[in-house]
């Protein structure tokens, strides 16, 4: 506390000095004086301080200094600050050049194996003046990043809520889940394909397994193929990624086994086409008009191809159930498909379809997350409104705290 006060007052003095210089130097120098000023000697930057940057893996050191008192707003003779670093007492190297007025730098090019010392210079076009050199410093690696404490808190609250409801569901607590139209329609869509004797097409988006939407799609696939296996309908699934092909085969196979029809499964149900977005779309379009599936599922991460696929599917008269968590593509699915899972519903779908208490519990947990979001939106809006309109300190503080919590 004492220190920071001292810092602040010294900063104040320097500011005052700067302002004084600004007022006096501006009008006093005429155009000719400027030339002489640039060769005139200037004061060096002072109080250079090198400290270990907190909460990192020992790969950065923060540097701060007080700019040269000749660093003025107008007719500034200083063109740059140059930072020099010497590691393990070797020759100093130039590591950065900063514009006038700078007083801070974060050096990311260090490691815990060496010790470093720094100096900073103020330079004019003709002249450079160096500050004192700092003591040697070795960056430290910390184990825990306290700057992320609020993120950690958020993680704990949300996952805590979800886990609480998973556990309480496991203990047998009944949970209500509202109907989701798109998912209610799945059985009917599969049944229709069976009646018509036509296949079902399943498209898991065009992203790889590192997209959580693709994984969500495969979990839904697992539930749907269970029904398909029971009805003994035909499914085919062109995919755009080799890994998705592998995972999807695994998933479908498991469902056929669970439905006690392992012999009906074949690897031909899932085929890799090409990684290229529109090459894939071109082929899927062709497949659609040639195989004429009665039902098309479009669940996963989609990009521009969403509407091409959905319109082609529509033109062959298929029932289409779509879903994606890419907001930009939702409008096209809404417009061209019979049922659309909007964003969050895609992730809720497999839990919903499974009907298992633990899975449904996680849906309840998601709702708690939404309630938390709504609560804080309400609180934040209240704080922002009061603080903007009446400038009451309590609410200003509340708003600041909320902003920090959610930063």
């Amino acid at each position, binding site marked *: 506390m004492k220190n920071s006060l001292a810092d602040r007052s010294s900063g104040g003095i320097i500011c005052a000095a700067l302002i004084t210089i600004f007022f006096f130097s501006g009008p006093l120098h005429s155009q000719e004086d400027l030339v002489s000023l640039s060769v005139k000697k200037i004061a060096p930057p002072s109080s250079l301080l090198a400290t270990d940057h907190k909460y990192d893996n020992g790969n950065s050191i923060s540097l701060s200094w007080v700019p040269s008192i000749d660093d003025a707003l107008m007719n500034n003779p200083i063109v740059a600050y140059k930072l020099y670093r010497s590691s393990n007492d070797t020759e100093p190297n130039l590591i950065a050049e900063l514009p006038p007025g700078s007083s801070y730098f974060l050096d990311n090019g260090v490691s815990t194996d060496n010790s470093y010392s720094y100096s900073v210079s103020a330079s004019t076009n003709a002249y450079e003046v160096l500050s004192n050199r700092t003591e040697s410093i070795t960056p430290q690696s910390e184990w825990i990043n306290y700057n992320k404490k609020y*993120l950690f808190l*958020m*993680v704990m609250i949300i996952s805590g809520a979800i886990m609480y409801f998973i556990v309480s569901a496991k203990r047998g607590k009944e949970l*209500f*889940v*509202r109907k989701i139209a798109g998912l209610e329609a799945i059985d009917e869509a599969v049944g229709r394909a069976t009646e018509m004797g036509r296949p079902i097409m399943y498209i898991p988006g065009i992203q790889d*397994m*590192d997209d*959580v939407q693709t*994984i969500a799609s495969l979990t839904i696939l697992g539930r749907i193929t269970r029904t398909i296996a029971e009805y003994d309908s035909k499914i085919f699934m062109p995919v755009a990624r080799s*890994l998705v092909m*592998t*995972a999807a085969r*695994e998933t479908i196979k498991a469902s056929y086994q669970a439905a006690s029809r392992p012999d009906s499964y074949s690897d031909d149900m899932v085929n*890799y*086409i*090409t*990684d*290229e977005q*529109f*090459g*894939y779309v*071109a*082929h899927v*379009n*062709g497949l659609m*008009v*040639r195989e004429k599936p009665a039902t098309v599922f479009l669940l996963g991460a989609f990009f521009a191809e969403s509407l091409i696929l959905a319109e082609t599917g529509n033109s062959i008269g298929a029932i289409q159930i779509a879903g994606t968590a890419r*907001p*930009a593509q939702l*409008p*096209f699915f*809404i*417009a061209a498909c019979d049922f659309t899972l909007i964003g*969050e*519903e895609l992730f809720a779908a497999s839990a919903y379809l499974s009907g298992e208490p633990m899975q449904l519990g996680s*849906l*309840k947990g*998601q*709702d708690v*997350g*939404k309630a938390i*979001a*709504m609560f*804080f*939106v*309400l609180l*934040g*809006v209240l*704080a*922002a*409104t009061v603080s*903007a*309109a*009446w*400038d009451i300190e309590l609410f200003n503080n509340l*708003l600041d705290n*909320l*902003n920090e919590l*959610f930063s």
Partner: protein
Amino acid sequence: MRKSSLMVLATVATLFIVSWIFKGIALEDIYESNYLQGFLLTFSAFLTLSIMSFLYKDNPFYKFSEHLFVGVSAAYAMVVGFWTTIVGNLVPRLSESLSNFFQIPYQEGTYNFFYYLPVIFGLMLLMRLSKKHGWMSRIPLAFIIGTTAGLNFIGYLRSDFTNQIAATFIPLLGAAGEWKGIGDFFSNLSLSAGGQLVMMLSNWVIFLGVFCGLIYFFFSREHTGLFGKASRVGIWILMITFGASFGYTVMGRISLLVGRITFLFKDWLGIIS
């Protein structure tokens, strides 16, 4: 093949050759290999038209382009994956002699041996081809799914959850000292920082929209009563969102076609400058 389809094929082939020759002559002054360029341009135009013909109906020309596209682009992805990932990321960490062969700098590092892990996982994945050890391919899949789940858990929570909530902390009334009187309030309905009523209305809409939109997504409550009404408002907001986004995108989509048609008329047929 039927007679009519043979006729079509012959016509297209003739047109192709005519275009090739004409294009070749036209490009004489620009390229040395003018006939090769003429062929390439004609072929590009042929592919363009073949894909467009799908709009009418499926046909052999579309099938040809489609199958060519699949084969070529699958190989393209594999080749790029090989050069950027295997040669670019794996080789310089595992083998100095291979790095020299590919003429890329070898990256020395203490933890390089970790890069054997994906290789092992990759080989396990190939175990799928064996009946007996096929189950081992699940381990790399489990690794990938664990990675995806872990990364997305934090990523989405940070960028979409907390940031979106913080962005909604907006004042519902004007700022202190900016009140310009009731007359101005109601008469300045312009879409600018000066129009206070519009500003206020916007903020109310954003606040209520987010709030009711979230209510719509509630799974564990029946949407009835007041809750149901709010959820109804949520649907309306979502519908405006979808309608607006759709309308907004149309313009971009039309530009794509402008680009293609310009290619046909300008680069291929040369009828516009």
